[in-house]
């Protein structure tokens, strides 16, 4: 059952990988095949050479020896060249394939609905997919190498030995068994070790973070807690070392025992060779050549089992992460203009994946075209989630959101390419790109050529004092640019929201430390921005609601009041209490 599943995964992987760079892939396979066979050629010419050597010691025929030496040299040199070529091409294939697959992953990410990123059971599914992809590439190259290099080599050696004597191929088993046994044992031990040490590793990492992490550095030091964590760190590191040493001891003991099988096999081969030589079944040259190739066979076998098959077995688990990722449902790709119409939320509820709590419950809300509304509520009341539903970032778990006319509404499921709508997030991002890109990222569909005037005009609107020459300046020190101040970044984020062609804009209040003057400035800016548009303002600062037509009061995911400030002061006790409480600090 598991085998069957694995083989399905393997076939899918190989198909995906072959598609990335088919010509090069096949070329590298062919090269590898010849490379494997060249080792056979070496064994043959080596035997011939060794025979000539032993003849030479009898009859001194230098010419034949030199010819044999040249043949042997040619075989060796051609094998070396093939080795270089095939190794190089494999690297090219791996690099190129990795790049192409990464792009495929990115394409896929772009089509996955935003809510999947909030699944707390599966937070790092993208990292796992990327890791799985890396493993898949390695797996495929190992697999190809196994099939076209090692297998032909061993078949060749098998036939070669068989032609010398029927018993000789049996000796391959002695080469084979100890390596497989150790490998099997090692894999099990390593899996156990991984499980046993993962929590310890986490501890070690955590205590390190306590001492040197940016968040805790100054505090740990000021508290005089460095030795406390250093002790904990040392203890857990030693614990980790002991666990590893313990496992290694087990493996070493086992391997020591197994190595006697290897030696016994070796002695047996030598004995058999001598026996065959005495019976005149083989020449002294063949004797020496086989004797020499036994060592190559041992190391090839070890390489094949330990490295190739061992790694393949350990990587296959992760590979399915990649395949599963590629099979996640995609959102539909239909463009939709949503800014120029009314928006109706009908009985909308929302819960995050892997959580049964409704963040929003039975929300009914109409936002008319050109209207300005504020959504208010305490921390955790669901304000931002509601905004994300309106923006189309999340889909309602229940109920529906209708843009425009009831008749020609587009069923919300899968519509994530909303145009005509813009956003200034409270967690706005500081992109490590040029100033121009930082602003134009909100509208990459239109060409940014000849837009400099427009961009500078927007900068001017939000009181950002930039010249044309500043536009191409990178905004991160990491990529050779200059960072902006917090206030400037805030304005760049607003400029970004404005640059997008939109008739509806959602403004999520910046809650991080902002001083009163800057805060007043931003609210005034918001007021100005939404004056010609449909505007949704999210805030927990109730005083700010003066700039809107309609206030929506959220509490624990439900709407408990809609109306103007004056209406709510009379009808919604929760609102008036909250307002009074905030106001009292300023009386």
């Amino acid at each position, binding site marked *: 059952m598991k085998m069957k599943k694995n083989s399905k995964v393997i076939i899918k992987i190989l198909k995906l990988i072959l598609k990335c760079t088919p010509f090069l892939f096949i070329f590298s396979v062919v090269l590898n095949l010849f490379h494997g066979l060249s080792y056979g050629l070496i064994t043959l010419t080596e035997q011939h050479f060794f025979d000539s050597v032993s003849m030479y010691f009898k009859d001194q025929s230098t010419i034949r020896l030199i010819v044999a030496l040249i043949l042997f040299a040619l075989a060796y040199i051609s094998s070396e060249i093939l080795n270089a070529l095939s190794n190089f091409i494999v690297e090219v294939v791996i690099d190129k394939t990795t790049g192409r697959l990464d792009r495929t992953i*990115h394409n896929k990410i772009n089509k996955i609905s935003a809510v999947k990123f909030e699944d707390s059971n599966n937070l790092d599914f993208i990292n796992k997919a990327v890791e799985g992809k890396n493993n898949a590439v390695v797996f495929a190259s190992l697999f190809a190498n196994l099939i076209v290099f090692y297998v032909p080599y061993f078949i060749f050696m098998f036939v070669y030995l068989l032609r010398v004597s029927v018993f000789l191929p049996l000796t391959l088993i002695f080469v084979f068994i100890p390596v497989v046994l150790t490998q099997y044992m090692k894999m099990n031990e390593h899996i156990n070790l991984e499980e046993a040490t993962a929590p310890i590793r986490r501890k070690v990492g955590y205590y390190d973070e306590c001492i040197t992490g940016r968040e805790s550095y100054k505090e740990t030091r000021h508290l005089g807690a460095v030795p406390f964590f250093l002790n904990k760190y040392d203890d857990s590191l030693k614990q980790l070392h002991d666990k590893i040493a313990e496992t290694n001891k087990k493996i070493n003991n086992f391997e020591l025992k197994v190595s006697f099988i290897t030696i016994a096999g070796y002695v047996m081969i030598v004995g058999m060779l001598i026996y065959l030589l005495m019976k005149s079944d083989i020449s002294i040259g063949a004797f020496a050549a086989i004797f020499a190739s036994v060592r190559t066979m041992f190391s090839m076998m070890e390489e094949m089992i330990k490295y190739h098959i061992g790694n393949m077995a350990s990587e296959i688990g992760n590979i399915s992460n990649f395949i599963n990722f590629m099979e996640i449902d995609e959102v539909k790709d239909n463009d939709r203009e949503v800014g120029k119409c009314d928006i109706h939320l009908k009985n909308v509820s929302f819960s995050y994946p892997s959580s049964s709590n409704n963040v929003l419950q039975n929300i009914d809300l109409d936002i008319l075209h050109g209207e300005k509304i504020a959504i208010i509520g305490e921390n955790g009341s669901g304000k931002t989630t509601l905004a994300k539903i309106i923006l189309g970032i999340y889909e309602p778990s229940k109920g529906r959101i209708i843009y425009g006319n009831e008749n020609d509404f587009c069923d919300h499921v899968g519509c994530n390419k909303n145009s005509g709508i813009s956003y200034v997030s409270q967690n706005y991002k500081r992109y490590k790109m040029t100033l121009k890109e930082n602003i134009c990222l909100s509208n990459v569909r239109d060409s940014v050529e000849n837009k400099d005037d427009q961009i500078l005009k927007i900068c001017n609107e939000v009181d950002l004092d930039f010249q044309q020459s500043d536009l191409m300046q990178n905004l991160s020190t990491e990529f050779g640019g200059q960072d902006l101040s917090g206030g400037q970044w805030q304005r760049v984020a607003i400029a970004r929201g404005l640059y997008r062609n939109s008739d509806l804009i959602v403004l999520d209040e910046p809650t991080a430390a902002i001083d009163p003057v800057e805060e007043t400035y931003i609210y005034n800016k918001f007021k100005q921005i939404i004056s010609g548009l449909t505007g949704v303002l999210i805030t927990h600062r109730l005083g700010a609601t003066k700039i809107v037509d309609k206030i929506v009061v959220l509490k624990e995911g439900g709407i408990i009041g809609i109306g103007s400030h004056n209406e709510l002061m009379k009808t919604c006790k929760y609102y008036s209490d909250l307002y009074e409480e905030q106001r009292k600090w300023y009386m």
Partner: protein
Amino acid sequence: MDKLNIKGNIFEYIVIAVKAANIYSVIIMVDSLINALVPLFSVYAIASFIDSVNEFYINSAGKDKLVINIILLALIMLYSQIHEILINRYVQLKFNQKMDLYYKNHVLKKCASLKYEYIENKTVWDQIHRVKNSSCSSLTKGFSNLIGVISVFVRIASLMYVAASYNILIITFMSIIIVPLLILSFRGGKETFDAEMESDRYRREADYYHQILADRNYVDEKTVFQYGDYINEKWFQKNEIARKINLKMRLKYFLRMKASSLVTLIVIFVILSLIIITNDKNMTVGFFLSFTMALLQLVDIMSWNFSNIMREIAIDREYIKDLKDFFDLEEKEDACATDAEPIDIDEIRFEHVSFKYPDQENYVLNDLNLVIKKNQHYALVGENGCGKTTLIKLLLGLYDNYEGNIYINSKELRTYRLSEIRGTFSVAFQDFARYSTTIRENLCISDLNRSISDEECYAVLEQVKLDDDVRKSVHGLDTGLGLVEKDSGDLSGGQWQKIAIARVILSDHPVRILDEPTAALDPVAESKLYDLFSKASKSKTTITVTHRLGAAKLADKIVVLKNGAVAEQGSHDELMESKGLYMNMFENQKGWYENEEE
């Protein structure tokens, strides 16, 4: 443990290894020398074996000799197996672990002792992380690469010595070939390293674009603005540039490597021909065959191993310099100590203090004068970037390159020891640490030497209204927090903030500082928390940094900072009366609550 002092010399890898892993490093060195001579020994053993087989084959004599030879071969095989397990595994593991412990301990201590200004300097911070993340494997690799080079030399030299005994020409011939090969390898190593650095630059940019696409924090903007495909294209471009640089470098690497292995091969075949042509009758068939096999093994070593080692040595040379720079960073005395000796404070006086962060042009504090008196409550307010937090950082002794003077009881701050500063101020930062240890350890972490009773802890928790929650949890004060230990719970953001403040209240330090540990709270919750704090700190000096003026009202004295200097100070009423900057700010916030109709 002793201090690590590095000069940046490549041979220091050996010095460090001997210091860190004493006996194990010596074993490894001696062993690799012996091991380099094993092939030479094998040549003779195999030669003797083949000859005895030959003799036995031709005239069926010397059976004993044959048996002895087979036993000898088996012994060599046994040796290499045992050697693999005993040295390559057991000793090597012990060695690695000793190095790991030694290295990490030194690096962590060094990190913890650095002058604080380094931590906020991006270049130094990156350097610290480069050193830290490289782990000790760079050190062990550096060591084994050096040993590796030496043992390859010994191996080649020993085989040449054997060949030379048959034909002296071979030595001259070999040295003419080998020296340029070595130079080629070494140059190649450096070139490869440089190319890797270059492609790394593009790779980093590509990684950043990948992050935009894959990080959940970018999802909202990516979905609304629909820039996913655009960024993907940018990623692909950068990645392709990096890949092509890499490809070119690898192509050169392969060409060089294979060129040297082909030269080696040709040399080997020439040597063999020379031996054949000038053969005196001393040489046996067995020796000739066995010697051929040994020489051919050199090809792999010369191509793969040697090129790799040379490339890595180029990296090692850079790394040890990096390490030297890291350990050369200046330290702050006493940083890793635990002791805390409170100063009995009468007043703290800032006199004409000016300060700018290292590497920055603008002064954050500008001729600041301020007096802080015992047992008074102060609030620091002002716009973003006016220097509130910087002032606190100076007070805590994080920077000492300020201009002007800060006196504590008429003695300059810089002349106090860190342990005295540590004992005087307790502080909750804006980004306060959330330690994944027990609740008790979180509370008492600055006084682990002093035993603090459960009652004391609960009394403080009660003051911040967290005592019920703690009593309810399974292990009470000993409940673990965070995800590091098994069976741990976690707290909400608000509860963590209460822990941070409780930590400050619990420590008996004379000055308590809150540097906006509550920024994420809504205004009302924040103000309430400040209220609790000031009630719990009646007989202490407190300094509260805030941008919410509602909370500042509680203070005895409000200090308004502007452009790095004190613009106004006084009680709320005084400041409102004087109709200055404070009143303007207060009215601004208040304005939102004044209904036009009222």
